[in-house]
Each structure stands twice: as structure tokens, then as C-alpha cells.
């Protein structure tokens, strides 16, 4: 039988590390791509006036492919704890988990759209990215609350 107090300590520290991972993701995104549609278009599709060359498909794949693994693992590890909490309803859990995965997919796939010249995808990428980060923050908030307060949060 696993001691609940130990499990709660582990969960709290793991969630803190995931929160730091989330913060580093936002920071890296803003440093690398910028947080506006025009900066995203310049990064992926290139900008002759700023002497920025367009990215290759290989370059985008190098970022996208590891993110399929990393993001899905992070969501899975975090969100599977949600199933054992009672803080939000089952329907809201369903919506939250589905929305996080969809937002992550929109974020990752939009890079290819920008690369092929469809500049509207810059907005989609930003919306996907912001939505993903906000929903992950919400998920972590719920789990922190469960780890700190609920006796049956494990």
C-alpha cells in the first residue's frame, strides 16, 4: 500500500517541475519565435528585409516530432492524476483533457501551414500555443489544489 502523504509530496514536487517546464516553454517560444503573428511569419517563412531565411521542412520537423512525444507524455503524466480527483465534474475533465491535446496539435501543425505560405496559420499557432499554456496552467492549478487540500486526491 502506498503512503498517501509520500504520494502527495511526490505529486507536489513533480507538478512544480512541470510548472517550471511550462514557464521555460513560454520563455523559449517568445525568445525564439516572438509573440506576434508577424514575428512567427518572419521566423518560419523568412523575411528578406530583415535577412531572415525561410525554415526548411526538416528544420520544422526537428522541432515538431520530439514535441509530439514530449507534449503528449507531459499531458498524459499530468492529466491522468485528474481522473483521481473530485474537484471538477467528469464532463469538465473530458473537455479539459480534449482541449489541451487539440490546442497542442493546432500549435504543432500550424508551423507547417506558415512554412507553406498560409500566413493565417500564424494566428492559429499563437491561439493554439496560448490556449495550450493556459489550459496546462489550469490543469496544474487543479492538481496543486487537489494535492494540497483533498485527502482523497491520489
Amino acid at each position, binding site marked *: 500500500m502506498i503512503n498517501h502523504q*509520500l504520494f502527495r509530496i511526490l505529486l507536489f514536487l513533480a507538478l512544480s517541475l512541470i510548472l517550471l517546464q511550462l514557464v521555460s516553454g513560454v520563455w523559449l517560444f517568445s525568445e525564439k519565435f516572438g509573440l506576434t503573428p508577424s514575428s512567427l511569419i518572419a521566423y518560419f517563412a523568412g523575411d528578406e528585409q530583415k535577412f531572415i531565411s525561410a525554415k526548411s521542412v526538416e528544420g520544422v520537423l526537428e522541432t515538431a516530432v520530439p514535441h509530439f512525444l514530449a507534449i503528449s507524455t507531459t499531458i498524459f503524466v499530468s492529466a491522468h492524476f485528474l481522473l483521481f480527483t473530485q474537484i471538477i465534474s467528469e464532463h469538465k475533465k473530458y473537455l479539459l483533457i480534449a482541449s489541451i491535446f487539440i490546442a497542442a496539435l493546432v500549435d504543432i501543425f500550424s508551423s507547417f501551414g506558415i512554412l507553406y505560405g498560409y500566413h493565417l496559420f500564424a494566428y492559429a499557432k499563437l491561439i493554439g500555443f496560448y490556449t495550450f499554456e493556459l489550459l496546462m496552467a489550469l490543469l496544474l492549478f487543479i492538481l496543486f489544489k487537489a494535492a494540497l487540500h483533498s485527502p482523497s486526491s491520489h
Partner: protein
Amino acid sequence: MKFLVSKNLHTNPNFTLLLSFYALMMLLYFIGDIFYLINFFGPTPCEVISTIKGKAEDFIEPLSLLSLLEHLHISLFLAILALFTTMAILLRLSLSFTHKKWIILLAMGSALLSFMALLGLYFSSKWMVYPFILFSLMWHLVGIYALSIALYQLGFKKT
């Protein structure tokens, strides 16, 4: 990782085999990562400072913020995965509550502090190099210690 901690370690030989090889590979990750960090940042505090802040007399450029963030982002993900699964195995080992608690606190806590110390070293004082090295070593060594106990109990201790 609920599925990793939902069975007794010794009831299913295949599960024991799976966990043993997983623990072995994780052990190699913790050991290998120490060598990677030494290779990336340098083996001494002075060299770590030179790598991050640069050294004009040796013509060493400071580490760019983008490189630092990329390192932090990737290393943090790997650390979370390795530590979390290792601690999930640890929860099922035959150890006292206090022993397990200290392993979890030292491993996970020092990992968190090591990444924060790295940011502190980049943005503020050079003295942050000492907590960075200390906490980095600590979470790797505690991880190695936890996995060594896991491998010992999986291999030798029949209950």
C-alpha cells in the same frame, strides 16, 4: 504513473523483468547525464562560469539566452520523466516512510533548485554556480541511489 505502482513488484516475473531493465536504463541515464553536464558546462566551477558568462581573456563568448533556454527546456523534460518514474518505483519498495520521504524530497527538490540556480547563475551572481553544481549532483546521485536499491530489491529480495 499509476500503472507503474499498481502491482506488487514480486508477484509477476515479467513485470519484475520490465522494471529491472527500466531501472537499469534509468540508472544509465542518471550516470550519463552527469557526464553530459560536465561536457556541456565544464568540470570545474570556474569553467561552468566561463561557459555561461563567457571569458574575455580566453575569447569565450557567453552562452546565448536561446541556448540556455533550449538546454533548460529539454533537460527539464528528461529530468521530470526520469525522476517521476524512478520515484513511482521507489514508492513500492520495502523502505521506511522516512527513508522514502527523504529520497523524494532530495531528488525532486534538488532537481527543481538546480534548474532555478542555473537561471540564477545566468541572470545574477556567479556564486550561484555552487548551488547549481551541488543540487545538480545531488539529484543525480539520489536518483542513482534510489535505482540501486530498486535493482537490489528486484534482483535479490524475494518477499
